[in-house]
């Protein structure tokens, strides 16, 4: 008897290009579960060498169109650490506000546009919009996403690629009045954010999703004072607790043939998960009061090790992003124009920020003229690849009774749980399923 093979040649509703290849032997044994990214490499770490350090945050955001901002802030921070740049309080607050807006926008995009169609049995959000019953929901989701985007435009000049953020600060800061208007819009969006938590919890509570728990190490940033997105220590559910700039010594990467993305493991241990589920598990106490209450109301208990619950974690984060952004706007108060100041000096720096899909790590070494000598970039999806393959290896044997098309959908959903961002990870998705 020949093998049964599930092969998705180009994973849909995800950023970038990748394939899923699952091979099942004649007796139902799993021979292979691979997530092969065929997104071509663009060699960012190599093209950065010999550029001016000021260009790196600008080039880094071109790694990924869905999470350009964490790439930008990781590189900016790494370079600032390398050169010993002091920042104003306003700059740090504006950057944190930015990342909250990013979580709002990206989580809404993933939840409603990329993930929800799977759970409600539609091909895409386009098909959902054609249903008059779902149309109002789609409209509200679009509004929520627009709000996150408008925050990017206000703070950085553009939805995707930053313009005003540079080493040392911002070339132009937003007007106080515009921040106040944003605050009013955030307040108005709160109700729908809370509805989103209920909706996500209802979707994830449908059988069979609640059955699929797989315990693995969850890694995220953590700070005692606030929900860590911009800075903090790197911690895990298995006891990892290190300064974020030390990530290279603890997270081991290797190049695996057949996949354009390097695979990651924690030193001496196993693969791990990064993203909203890890963040909520590790930082539940730092969530806003309303976000915690929303989590309790839908019976979300930490630690939660069911990857299909990641959409609920995303929804909870949307509530927190709104509360957190309002708080940050209050803290910023009256904005004042500051000239970004720094002096070029030789040094090496590393930094980690939280992209909506997990930790985003960058390291840069510059020489005394500000020319880059080394650039180390690792995107969140690269952290998740091996873990996602292990999810498949564990779950597929339980799905053997399904038809090929159902099994393929479940395999795709397993990867979409990670909100993959494959352009970054290779610096891509197809599902291959083979069975006897």
């Amino acid at each position, binding site marked *: 008897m020949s093998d049964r093979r599930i092969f998705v040649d180009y994973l*849909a509703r995800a950023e970038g290009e990748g394939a899923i290849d699952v091979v099942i032997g004649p007796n139902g044994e799993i021979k292979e579960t691979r997530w092969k990214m065929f997104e071509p*490499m663009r060699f960012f770490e*190599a093209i950065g060498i010999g550029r001016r350090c000021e260009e790196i945050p600008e080039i880094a955001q071109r790694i990924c*169109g869905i999470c350009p901002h964490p790439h930008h802030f990781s590189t900016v921070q790494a370079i600032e650490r390398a050169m010993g740049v002091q920042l104003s309080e306003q700059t740090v607050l504006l950057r944190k506000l930015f990342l909250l807006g990013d979580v709002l926008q990206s989580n809404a995009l993933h939840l409603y546009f990329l993930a929800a169609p799977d759970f409600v049995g539609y*091909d895409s959000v386009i098909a959902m919009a054609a249903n008059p019953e779902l149309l109002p929901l789609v409209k509200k989701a679009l509004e929520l996403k*627009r709000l996150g985007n408008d925050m990017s435009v206000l703070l950085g000049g553009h939805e995707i690629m930053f313009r005003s953020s540079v080493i040392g600060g911002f070339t132009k800061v937003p007007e106080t009045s515009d921040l106040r208007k944003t605050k009013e819009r955030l307040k108005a969006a709160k109700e729908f954010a809370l509805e989103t938590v209920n909706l996500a919890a209802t979707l994830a509570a449908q059988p069979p999703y609640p059955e699929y728990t797989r315990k693995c190490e969850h890694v995220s940033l953590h700070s005692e004072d606030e929900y860590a997105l911009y800075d903090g220590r790197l911690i895990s559910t298995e006891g990892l607790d290190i300064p974020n700039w030390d990530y290279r010594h603890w997270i081991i*990467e290797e*190049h695996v043939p057949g996949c354009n993305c390097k695979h990651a493991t924690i030193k001496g241990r196993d693969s791990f998960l990064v993203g909203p589920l890890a963040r909520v598990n590790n930082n539940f106490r730092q969530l806003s009061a309303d976000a915690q209450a929303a989590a309790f109301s839908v019976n979300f208990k930490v630690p939660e090790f069911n990857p299909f619950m990641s959409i609920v974690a995303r929804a909870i984060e949307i509530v927190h992003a709104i509360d957190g952004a309002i708080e940050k706007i209050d803290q910023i108060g009256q904005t004042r124009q500051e000239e970004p100041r720094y002096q070029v000096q030789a040094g090496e720096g590393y930094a980690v920020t939280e992209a909506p899909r997990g930790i985003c790590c960058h390291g840069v070494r510059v020489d005394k003229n500000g020319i880059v000598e080394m650039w180390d970039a690792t995107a969140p999806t690269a952290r998740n690849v091996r873990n996602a393959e292990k999810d498949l290896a564990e779950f597929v044997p339980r799905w053997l009774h399904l038809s090929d098309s159902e099994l393929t959908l479940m395999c795709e959903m397993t990867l979409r749980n990670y909100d993959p961002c494959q352009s970054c990870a290779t610096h891509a998705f197809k599902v291959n399923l083979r069975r006897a």
Partner: protein
Amino acid sequence: MAKPKVAFFKFSSCSGCQLSLLNLENYLLDILGAVEIPYFVMAQRTNLAGPYDIAFVEGSINTPRELEELKQIRKQSTKIIAFGTCANTGNVQSIKNFIGTQREMEERAGYTHFEDILSFPVKGIEHYIKVDGRILGCAPDLGEILEFLRCALLGINPAFLPHPVCNECKLKENVCLLLSKKQPCMGPVSAGGCGALCPSLNRQCEGCRGPAKDCNPAALARIFQYQLGLSREDIVRKFQKYAGETPEFRKGVEAVR
């Protein structure tokens, strides 16, 4: 009248251009009402083969597989639009064309199984196929995408002007970064349409939309060199970033050679 079939394809790039379409939240439902989208992998699971009326192609061509797929898309599509800077001029990944050998690049980026990696010099899609229209920008301006779609539906040419960023900067009454603040701004040679976004935010233009029509990069390179005192390396870096492969920006590099 049947709705036009609009397809979205992606090659080596960041998906930011496709996301820009989804970022048109306020108009998205209207757009979906006016066109049929048979192919858009980032947004839907079921994707159909051609023929397509309009194909938006994002990304640069970086591998033999991509080149083969691009040729197939050309065969299946009536009109092809180069969507964004990668598809038009290669974008930042084209920097690799100017530095070191392929093998060095791979070693620098930390890959160990070289037999796995297929990659050739990065080019925009027009290097290989005929292109019927362009949307510039990294990432494209939402207003321009909307205008392009509107014109495409009406069957007319969009009135994208070939002027440089400077024109738009003057209309906004910004203080000139190049002449007044002596900053190395690429505005005089870079295609406008962005509304002089960066200079309006006190930041010099980096030329992310590629060269403007009839620009004079050699003169700008000499201004950078003699009036602003930039080093040769800095000037080369300026011209070899978003559109180093274009004949215009090559002239900027040659002027300081």
